[in-house]
């Protein structure tokens, strides 16, 4: 029976929360514009309760959607499309944000949390900022409204029934049909990073609304300066979360996807990178607004730009405009019109208000001195702005085509063929300048500088960094000019900021250390990126490949190698051996061989064919029934290097009915580098194995014979009492031949079975995929003491894999942590400043 109630309840909550946000916006608007204190308080009180009620309904929507997923109500499209019965509960949370509606819901939820915090913490600004908050909530809630007015669809509800989305004949026969299972969560998202990455990133996204609300409220209420103090800690908080969220995503991509890195300049990534970089610029100008009104004006522009870029990014990734340009854009829900209105509405409000009030914003006519921190911060903000501009210019290419089409011009512009080169050749110069500016600029924060003092302060860091970078440059033989500059600049930034940091520690002013710590983190990240991306080395180069043509030689090097099971092969300084397929069993450590378990009719259960030991402990016994993760297969690849102990990597491949072959790498992590290995191809598991014509052989006990070029020997023939899948009666007989096949230092044992059942002769062949061998036991000839076997052969099991070495990638991850420490210190300091000012 279809549970209609729960979906209707959810839909009702959506409509109520939408209406409440509109009414709350109206109340707060009246409060903000109220002339007398009494009506101001009255309207504020209304707005506050309306917003709280709105928040309660948002929580209600989330609970309802979670119950639908948790209870496997597959009559609902959201549960059917994003979940399945066997999905562990913690991944049910990820189901929320796999779909576009759920990710809007997450965004709405964070805005509710932030709004309620602001209501509690900032009474003075409550009315104007909450009016803006509530109107944003109304726009977001409208995206999941799912109602039609005069044939215009507004929003896409997460509570639609499967039968209303999918037209399938089965619904005509039985409208109450409920599928037994959902199609499941994308296996790539079944990863712990995917549980925490989207909420972190969306909290960062959502928080950009706070500085934006403050600046709009400041312009609206003519408080052109006072809006900054409360906005700064939130802007830093937002930037810290966006950075954490992005890096979690990058780390997930590194661990789970197989493009050989952590960043691919995909539009979805750029859509976070650009607002983030502009926001970082805005934080810097907001810090210096007091002394310089040019910084105030710049801050107004940058804060507004950050928020509008968030809206633009939302439009880009969710409207379907990117089409084939992105690998992980959402399904197009037909919301592009609505998203465009959202973007244009806020653009009009913000830009209009700016123009209207611009003359009243205080300004400074005096030029800033080169020896002031203002100068260095302006330079930094300019560089950041240009870096963001370049990425946006490239990412927006599909938008230009769409705009030109509106004017009847057909345009065939495509994204750059090599995105990584297109973006990094420009961004690297930005990185160099940022490192130099952040290293030097810090000196101006604490002292009044002039020419001679500056050189005194800079000479030691400059000297140290030149010496260190020369050593690194010689040891690692760096040739590229821009790389040498980035290396020197990065080391300079670390040394210079460390000098400042040591000075602060000596003075025990830890709370002021946020800036220098964050800049050390950024410089470390730049160095980590320089080495891990600039000097990543494909070590699985296939030398046997022919060059196609001379002018293509660079691109046409083959970067994959083929490994046949148990056949060692030289690759770079390693000897590689593919040792076979491994499975993942619930609660079982390590990777038991696929051969150790036997399938059962239930794909989630297998029976052990032998006992399994891990680190000397018996984990399971023969005949035990075990839970298997049926989609996952791991491929053990052993790496051996001269005198070092051998180690194995277990790259994974998943055969997914919806998505084909999905591969994830395995990474050997060393202090100074990572060794990254992924599968590129395996024999197609969906095609039946093609066996050769059977070759009959009659052999004696102990006789050696050839099987697919390997030497085999018949060791034993023994009676068996039990045969899988066959019931043996009292008159039936079954025997198995035990055949050993010797390959290098490994022995494979095959046990084909010969049966006489109800006076009929039959046999059950045994297969060894690693050797591509199938042996059948056809007959026993007692008079001659001979046994008749039949041998078939096929392609041996193989994998095609790629291995990449990434030097110093840990410097990047460590730099991220340092950056977070810096951000946190800065948030604490700026929040205290705000508290003191109230």
């Amino acid at each position, binding site marked *: 029976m279809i549970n209609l109630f729960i979906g209707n309840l959810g839909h009702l909550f959506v409509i109520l929360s939408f209406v409440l946000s509109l009414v709350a916006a109206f109340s707060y608007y009246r409060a903000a514009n109220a002339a007398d204190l009494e009506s101001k308080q009255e309207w504020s009180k209304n707005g506050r309760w309306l917003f709280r009620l709105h928040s309660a309904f948002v929580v209600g929507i989330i609970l309802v959607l979670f119950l639908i997923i948790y209870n496997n109500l597959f009559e609902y499209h959201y549960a059917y499309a994003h979940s399945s019965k066997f999905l562990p509960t913690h991944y049910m949370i990820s189901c929320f944000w796999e779909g576009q509606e759920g990710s809007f819901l997450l965004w709405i939820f964070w805005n509710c949390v932030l709004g309620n915090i602001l209501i509690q913490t900032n009474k003075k600004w409550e009315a104007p900022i909450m009016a803006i908050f509530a109107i944003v909530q109304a726009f977001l809630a409208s995206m999941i409204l799912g109602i039609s007015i005069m044939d215009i669809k507004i929003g896409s509800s997460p509570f639609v029934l499967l039968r209303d989305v999918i037209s399938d004949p089965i619904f005509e026969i039985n409208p109450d049909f409920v*599928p037994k299972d959902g199609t499941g969560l994308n296996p790539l998202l079944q990863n712990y990073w995917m549980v925490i990455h989207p909420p972190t990133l969306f909290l960062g996204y959502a928080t950009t609304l706070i500085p934006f609300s403050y600046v709009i409220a400041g312009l609206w209420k003519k408080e052109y300066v006072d809006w900054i103090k409360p906005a700064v800690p939130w802007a830093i908080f937002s930037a810290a979360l966006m950075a954490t969220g992005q890096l979690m995503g990058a780390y997930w991509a590194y661990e789970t996807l197989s493009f050989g890195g952590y960043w691919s300049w995909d539009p979805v990534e750029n859509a976070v990178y650009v607002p983030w970089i502009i926001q970082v610029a805005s934080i810097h100008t907001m810090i210096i607004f007091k002394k310089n009104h040019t910084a105030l004006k710049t801050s107004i522009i940058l804060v507004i730009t950050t928020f509008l870029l968030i809206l633009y990014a939302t439009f880009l990734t969710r409207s379907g405009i990117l089409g084939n340009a992105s690998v992980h854009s959402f399904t197009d829900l037909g919301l592009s019109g609505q998203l465009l209105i959202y973007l244009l509405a806020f653009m009009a409000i913000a830009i209009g208000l700016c123009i209207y009030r611009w003359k009243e914003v205080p300004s400074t006519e005096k030029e800033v001195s080169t020896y002031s921190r203002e100068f260095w911060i302006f330079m930094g903000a*300019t560089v950041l702005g*240009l870096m963001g501009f370049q990425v946006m210019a490239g990412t927006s290419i599909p938008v230009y085509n769409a705009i030109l089409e509106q004017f009847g011009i057909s345009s*065939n512009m495509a994204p750059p063929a090599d995105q990584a080169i297109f973006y990094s050749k420009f961004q690297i110069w930005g990185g160099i300048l940022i490192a130099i500016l952040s290293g030097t600029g810090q000196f101006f924060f604490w002292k009044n500088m002039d020419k001679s003092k500056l050189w005194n302060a800079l000479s030691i860091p400059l000297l140290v960094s030149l010496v260190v970078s020369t050593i690194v440059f010689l040891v690692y033989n760096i040739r590229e000019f821009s790389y040498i500059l980035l290396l020197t600049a990065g080391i300079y930034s670390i040394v210079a900021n460390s000098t400042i940091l040591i000075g602060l520690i000596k003075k025990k002013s830890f709370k002021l250390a946020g800036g220098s710590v964050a800049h050390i983190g950024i410089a470390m990240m730049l160095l980590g990126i320089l080495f891990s991306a600039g000097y990543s080395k494909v070590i699985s180069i296939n030398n046997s*490949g022919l060059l*196609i043509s001379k002018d*293509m030689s660079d691109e046409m090097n083959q970067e994959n190698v083929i490994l046949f099971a148990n056949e060692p092969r030289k690759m770079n300084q390693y000897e590689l051996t593919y040792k076979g397929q491994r499975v993942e069993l619930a609660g079982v450590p390590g990777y038991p061989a696929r051969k150790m378990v036997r399938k059962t009719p239930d794909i989630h259960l297998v029976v052990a064919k032998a006992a399994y030991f891990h680190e000397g402990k018996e984990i399971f016994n023969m005949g035990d029934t075990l839970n298997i993760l049926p989609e996952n297969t791991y491929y053990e690849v052993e790496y051996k290097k001269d005198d070092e102990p051998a180690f194995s990597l277990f790259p994974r491949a998943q055969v997914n*009915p*919806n998505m084909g*072959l999905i591969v994830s790498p395995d990474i050997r992590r060393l202090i100074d580098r990572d060794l990254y290995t992924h599968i590129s191809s395996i024999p197609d598991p969906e095609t039946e194995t093609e066996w050769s014509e059977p070759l009959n052989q009659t052999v004696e006990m102990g006789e050696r014979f050839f099987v697919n070029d390997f030497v085999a020997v018949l060791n034993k023939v023994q009676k068996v009492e039990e045969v899988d899948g066959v019931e043996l009666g009292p008159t039936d007989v079954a025997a198995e031949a035990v055949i050993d096949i010797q390959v290098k230092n490994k022995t494979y044992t095959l046990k084909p079975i010969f049966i006489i059942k109800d006076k009929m002769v039959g046999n059950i062949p045994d297969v060894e995929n690693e050797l591509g061998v199938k042996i059948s036991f056809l007959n026993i000839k007692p008079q001659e003491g001979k046994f008749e076997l039949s041998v078939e052969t096929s392609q041996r099991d193989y994998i095609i894999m790629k291995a990449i070495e990434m030097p110093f990638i840990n410097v990047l991850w460590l730099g991220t942590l340092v950056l977070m420490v810096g951000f946190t210190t800065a948030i604490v300091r700026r929040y205290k400043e705000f508290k003191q000012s109230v």
Partner: protein
Amino acid sequence: MKKSHIIGIVVIAVAVFVIISTAGDASTYVNFDEAKALSDSGSNNKVHVVGQMKKDANGEIVGVEPGEDKLTVTFLMVDNKNKTNKVFYNKPMPPDLKKSEQVVVIGKYKDDIFYANEILLKCPSKYEEDKLQISAVN
């Protein structure tokens, strides 16, 4: 001249440079004939060609030939002008190639063969949610 003017000019110059380089580095969507014409005229830019896998009368994909060592693949692709061309891809065959509805190849045309550096595949079932799946129905 004030310092801010100099900086302003530099910023504008960089911005103009960015726009020019974006326009210059942007690739184009073309068909095989245009790709050939471009390569004949000496252009070294990589282009995008959109099309489908070649199918026989029964709708089976034909002409996919993995290289001898399985590390490369060649296949036949029909562009949007219905021209069939051979495509060489210097990487192992993407597992979904034989199921793809739409193929985008990025690379260069040379000696009657399109050399793809990158292939983007659009599989019929990938992310598609508007069809009931047999496995889920049974």
